[in-house]
């Protein structure tokens, strides 16, 4: 019976950063799955994230990594300061003295633990009196943070996280798929909606400041601010680059708020617009965009944006590549694969990597609560500024636009455009704003990428 109900079962209730923490994280995973399945909130992501969160909190070693500590010099091991007993593991603290090496010239080199971890007897690879050379392995620490330099994922979730997220491959390739799925026609028919996509990025910079005031450092603040762009893959990409230790908080915040757009945006829109403004009629028909314009767009957008913001190149390059596959008319197979099977596979991996990283240790921290709080402020301010700039634009436009379409400047494609459509029809049943809102909506995707590029330009 021992192995069946042994350590795993007991530590589920007693282990983690505080007693019962795995149970709490497990229940949060269940909540995500419930919201995905029953409420249909971003189910493609919340279901995998929630389920993997459940699994990893039942068995946290699934996110474990190991770290080999190597000798930095040639010499003889003179002191071994750690003595694990066979069959047990020794808890190692960060900066704990592990062993000493005497160099041929008599100098003593102290080897300290670069991170906390666990050491088993068989993982201590040297003993007193052994001769070692540079890069010889001295010992192996288990259960270290995957974010520690040189750590190697050893289990399902840690391997996917290391290979897909820390290398930034998954979020970038997801953009390729998104490019293949995105119709930039409404934006091309009405390029001034790009201004609304830019305006909504105000939320990103506003929350960047708020995060600094809450005590986060600049790189962390950038990763939290970008949640306001309502663009999950950009959030994952930027956080992986600047503050990977926050991924367990920023990624679910970005995706769950994208799902909550129908709850967050309407009160903000209503607060900033009168009934008369919400009823402003826009002709349902947009200008027809030629095939040539559609083909030229990804090329032009890539050139203009990469010239002006080179650090946005990976993001915009992947998005526009996918869009060119869609629009060029001769790569239908590639476009179909990128927009269907390819993006689905990546989404599964993304969900597993993010959900698998959400152990109680990584997720149940005060920082997470603050990130979720700041995320909702980012969404609300992005919505508000989009609406306000649309109202300002109306002061100069002959043909007025419905200011609600400014709210769609937060990307959240197509959720925020749908919100505008529903509210528009309520205010004026003749109105059909969906395609008008899709312009700022896809402009918001580009705006968020440019915002991420500016963050990387300054602190990357």
């Amino acid at each position, binding site marked *: 019976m021992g192995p069946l109900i042994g350590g795993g079962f007991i530590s589920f209730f007693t282990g983690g950063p505080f007693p019962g923490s795995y149970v709490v994280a497990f229940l949060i995973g269940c909540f995500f799955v419930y919201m995905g399945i029953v409420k249909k909130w971003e189910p493609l992501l919340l279901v995998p994230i929630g389920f993997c969160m459940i699994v990893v909190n039942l068995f946290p070693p699934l996110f474990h990594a190991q770290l080999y500590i190597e000798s930095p010099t040639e010499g003889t091991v003179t002191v071994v300061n750690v003595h694990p007993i066979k069959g047990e593991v020794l808890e190692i603290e960060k900066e704990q003295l592990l062993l000493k090496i005497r160099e041929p010239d008599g100098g003593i080199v102290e080897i300290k633990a670069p991170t906390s971890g666990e050491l088993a007897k068989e993982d201590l690879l040297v003993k007193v009196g052994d001769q070692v050379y540079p890069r010889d392995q001295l010992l192996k620490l288990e259960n270290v943070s995957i974010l520690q330099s040189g750590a190697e994922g050893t289990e399902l979730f840690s391997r996917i996280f290391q290979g897909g997220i820390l290398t930034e491959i998954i979020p970038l390739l997801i953009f390729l798929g998104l490019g293949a799925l995105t119709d930039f026609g409404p934006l*091309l028919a009405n*390029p*001034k909606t*790009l*201004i609304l*996509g*830019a*305006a909504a*990025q*105000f939320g990103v*910079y506003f929350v*960047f*400041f708020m995060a*600094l005031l809450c005590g986060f*450092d*600049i790189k962390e*603040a*950038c990763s939290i601010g970008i949640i306001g762009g309502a663009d999950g893959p950009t959030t994952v990409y930027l956080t992986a680059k600047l503050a990977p230790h926050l991924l367990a908080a920023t990624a679910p915040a970005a995706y769950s708020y994208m799902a909550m757009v129908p709850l967050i945006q309407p009160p903000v829109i209503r607060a900033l617009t009168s009934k008369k403004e919400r009823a402003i009629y826009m002709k349902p028909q947009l200008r027809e965009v*030629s095939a*040539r*314009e559609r083909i*030229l*767009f990804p090329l*032009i*957008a890539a050139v*203009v*944006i990469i010239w*002006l*913001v080179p650090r946005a190149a990976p993001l915009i390059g992947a998005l526009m590549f996918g869009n060119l596959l869609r629009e060029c008319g001769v790569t239908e197979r590639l476009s179909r694969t990128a927009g269907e099977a390819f993006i689905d596979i990546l989404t599964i991996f993304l969900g597993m990597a993010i959900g698998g990283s959400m152990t109680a240790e990584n997720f149940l921290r005060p920082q997470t609560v603050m990130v979720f709080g700041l995320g909702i402020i980012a969404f609300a301010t992005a919505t508000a500024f989009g609406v306000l700039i649309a109202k300002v634009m109306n002061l100069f436009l002959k043909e007025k636009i419905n200011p609600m379409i400014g709210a769609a400047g937060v990307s959240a494609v197509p959720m925020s455009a749908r919100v505008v459509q529903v509210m528009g029809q309520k205010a004026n049943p003749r109105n059909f704003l969906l395609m008008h809102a899709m312009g700022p909506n896809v*402009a918001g995707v*580009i*705006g968020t990428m*440019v*915002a991420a590029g*500016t*963050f990387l330009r*300054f*602190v990357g």
Partner: protein
Amino acid sequence: MVDWALATKIAGAGFGIVFLVLIILAMVLCGVSRLIQSLRRGKEGQAQQPRGK
């Protein structure tokens, strides 16, 4: 300790750059769209012109 000067620069310049880049992109797209339309009109005009003697 937060470097507020850098933070202000990131937010101010960053938001400015986002606006500038998207406005430039909008202008380029408008220009390309007009160019394509005028080229198309030119072609259609040529096609409609009666052939010379």
